[in-house]
């Protein structure tokens, strides 16, 4: 049992990365990671040691995130008053600026498309794993992935030879 706590701890950096990409906000991302770890501990008996711990954690995190998004839609909106992480870097060097534009574009994708793209592109999960994590058919994974990439590609193609920018 000490084992699973150790294993969970080893996953924290990757969970934080995914949560950051998912929420676009450092504070909310870490809250999400913490909730995810707590839930994983409280449901540790549901995890089979021979299965993929990371996929199980992503499943938990995905469900927590979806619930939080739903709650937010129905409730008051919270905005971080000061989140240096999100703004300071926007004025950094060109390359960085380009990436920040990408982040903005990413956050404009439909939630369901973004989730699939992040799991595939950043976390490098197989399509089958994504299908399990999100509890959707592989065909749906593919169509969401396609739409996500086409949407972002459209933004890039419209600015060929320039920095990637989001036209609002």
């Amino acid at each position, binding site marked *: 049992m000490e084992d699973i706590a150790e294993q969970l701890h080893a996953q924290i950096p990757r969970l934080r990365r995914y949560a950051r990409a998912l929420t676009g906000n450092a504070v909310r991302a870490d809250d999400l990671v913490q909730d995810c*770890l707590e839930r994983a*501990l409280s449901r540790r008996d549901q995890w089979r040691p021979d299965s993929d711990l990371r996929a199980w954690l992503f499943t938990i995190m995905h469900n927590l995130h979806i619930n939080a998004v739903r709650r937010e839609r129905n409730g008051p909106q919270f905005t971080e008053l000061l989140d240096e992480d999100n703004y300071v870097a926007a004025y950094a060097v060109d390359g960085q600026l380009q990436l920040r534009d*990408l982040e903005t574009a990413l956050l404009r994708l439909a939630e369901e498309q973004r989730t699939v793209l992040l799991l595939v592109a950043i976390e490098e999960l197989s399509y089958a794993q994504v299908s399990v994590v999100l509890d959707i058919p592989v065909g749906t994974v593919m169509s969401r992935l396609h739409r996500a990439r086409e949407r972002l590609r459209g933004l890039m193609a419209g600015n060929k030879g320039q920095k990637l920018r989001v036209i609002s």
Partner: protein
Amino acid sequence: MTNEAVNDAELHAYVDGQLDTARRRAVEAYLATHPDEAERVAQYQQLNSALRKLYEPVLNEPLPTRFRNQKTRKTYRLAWVASVIVSLFAGGIIGWQMHVVTAPRSAVPMALIQQAAFAHVVYTPEVRHPVEVTAAEEAHLVAWLSKRMNTSIRAPQLQKAGFELVGGRLLPADGRMAAQFMYQNSNGVRLTLYVRRDAMNSTTAFRYIQQDKLNMFYWVDGSFGYALSGEIDKAKLSQVAMLVHEQLER
């Protein structure tokens, strides 16, 4: 190699390195003769590497304190709760998976103890999220838990013993619901009262178990199981348990 057979899904799988060698070659042959598609695939690839580059720095950030504590403190605490449970089963016939094999009569108190002990060690060290609903919203807390547990449930008042309500949370318990109330005294010592609904309808005396610093009183009263846990001495905890029992008697 039939170029026509290459579809969108395969182009994505090619970008993501999820094709076997034969299909990868087929896609490469197709792209060699379809420059527009090759351009699209190149953009998908750039997108992948830009996304990785964007979020990679997070992997190398030092962990915030809340996660560093998680390791040292929780791991340690979970390890000794494991030893509580292992010592309970020292007879040797029952393991951690006991709920699968044992008779309901003995399983319920065991499951009660396990779950209450876990819930105690997982949530009492929390600084930011010790409870889901705080004592400031006690009326809401009680209404919510009562609704989810489908019965009237109250948070006992423990001020007489020096403990104030911090709040409570709902927990899963073998397909049913359980509630945890957390209390704290002026020294910051925390107690938890775990309440679990069960279909066994018996009544037991107070029982006591102790391991290292954690003491627990547990009992079953009708269709409810209760466990009061804390790192305070047995006499003091027993006094609190009496207080709880008086107020919850149905």
